[in-house]
């Protein structure tokens, strides 16, 4: 719908104008009484919330479709503004820990070291990868690109993989608690788990491989029993929960659209 402007001066004027309008709107919202703010927020929520389903349900390319890309750009711009707030939040919380020398201040120091060095290396990698360094040879990485690779692939990725791998140990401890047979349900869970786990290892299938495949006894072969459990018991139960949640989501979306959820009637205080 909107074409990029070729005239850079006009472009700058429009950007500055948009910023001024945004600031004026924000000031007006902040200085208006709570009930006005509430009505403005409810109105905007309703209109924007109504736009998406209407655009989708009116067949083919319609009069609302032209606004789809500008609206998604607007959402991205709004989200972009809040990234700054996230950084401010981190800096305030960790800065206070360091200034007040709380018991946890080493963690905050680690945050600042990580944050500043990653941002510094990231910017140089993107804009000036060979600043204060020799020009890279054929097939070589520039100094700051190599440094970025070390920070990202050598440090961040192994750290996140380490946290992910903790999951294996947590699954064992959670499974231990879940499988303690104290009720009929826990007993059934344990039996189902044994069948499915055994069916997924070679020794499990070997255990019942002597049962003939061409008679009713085939249902007692572990791989068949496990397949039956996962496709006939587990999958329908999961789908049932998903169905319920999907309808619940529809209801919740309607409540948000109509500003019926009290927690979203911002502007009360």
């Amino acid at each position, binding site marked *: 719908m909107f074409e990029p402007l070729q005239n850079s001066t006009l472009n700058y004027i429009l950007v500055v104008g948009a910023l001024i309008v945004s600031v004026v709107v924000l000031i007006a919202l902040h200085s208006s009484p709570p009930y006005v703010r509430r009505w403005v927020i409810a109105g905007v929520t309703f209109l924007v919330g109504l736009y998406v389903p209407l655009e*989708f*349900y009116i*067949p*083919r*390319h*319609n009069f609302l479709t032209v606004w789809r890309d500008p609206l998604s750009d607007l959402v991205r711009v*709004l*989200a972009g503004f*809040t*990234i700054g*707030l*996230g950084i401010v*939040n*981190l800096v*305030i*919380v960790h800065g*206070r820990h360091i200034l007040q020398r709380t018991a*946890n201040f080493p*963690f905050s120091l680690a945050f600042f070291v990580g944050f500043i060095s990653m941002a510094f290396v990231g910017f140089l990698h993107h804009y000036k990868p060979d600043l204060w360094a020799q020009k890279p040879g054929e097939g070589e990485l520039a100094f700051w690109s190599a440094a970025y690779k070390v920070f990202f692939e050598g440090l*961040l990725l192994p*750290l*996140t*993989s380490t*946290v*992910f791998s*903790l*999951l294996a140990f*947590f*699954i064992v*401890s*959670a*499974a231990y*608690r*879940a499988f303690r047979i104290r009720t009929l349900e826990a007993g059934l869970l344990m039996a189902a788990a044994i069948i499915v786990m055994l069916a997924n290892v070679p020794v499990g299938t070997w255990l019942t491989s002597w049962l003939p495949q061409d008679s009713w006894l085939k249902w007692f072969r572990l791989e068949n029993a496990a397949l039956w459990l996962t496709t006939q018991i587990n999958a329908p139960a*999961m789908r*049932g*929960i*998903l*169905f*319920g*949640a999907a*309808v*619940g*989501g*529809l*209801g*919740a*979306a*309607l*409540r*948000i659209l*109509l500003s*019926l*959820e*009290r*927690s*979203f009637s*911002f502007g*009360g*205080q």
Partner: protein
Amino acid sequence: MEHADWGTIYPYLVWTLVAIIGLGIALASAGKRLHIRRLPAIDAIEEAVGRATEMGRPMMFVPGLAGVDVPTFQAIAIAGHVARLAARYRSRIIMPVTDTVILTMAEQVLREAYAEGGAPDAFNPEDIRFLSGDQFAFASGVVGLMNRERVAANFFFGSFAAESLILAETGQALGAIQIAGTPSTLQIPFFIAACDFTVIGEEYYAVTAYLTREPILLGSVWGQDVCRILLASLIFATTVAQKFLPPFVLKFLGL
């Protein structure tokens, strides 16, 4: 698919469901008394807040990993109710978030909830913390916070992925009372195994109605239940009648 295909049943079905939920809201607004069954997990929220207050330790509310979507909106609404209870006892809630848009929303909702609860000064904006946008960096940040702050109660509401068990097991090891609710079907078993109380599936979207008992919210829950009965009947009827239906009807039903 760019737009809805009106040659199938789906758009009609969605608008029928919306109309039924709307009818529920209208009936409740007109004064019809509606009943909602007991949800023990939600009854336990007050107990968890009370316990944390007695122990003099903070609570933690994790609104999931997702950005701006319906489950997260619902999680923030639930956080508002928990904060209102916490304000009554002047207890502290720590809320780590993974999305900066949610950070601003959560701060506003909790600030207003503490004010409504009569303790605006008990709200500390620094307790709403943006940790990281990365899944496992966020998980490790939450685990660190739980251990350092020695939280007495954990609330996990929202969309979760693989980090759900890391968070819930850490809370379990700390001895915190834990209440979880998620529409993410793959994470439900993890929460059931590691938490004291779990709300699943559609119960997740009924929490605010259950907590506030507001007629309009109860009406939407009633409407949703009617929709589920309708959908289940439709599935059953079409499964049974599949052999006898003419091809154009089958095509319309997407079968």
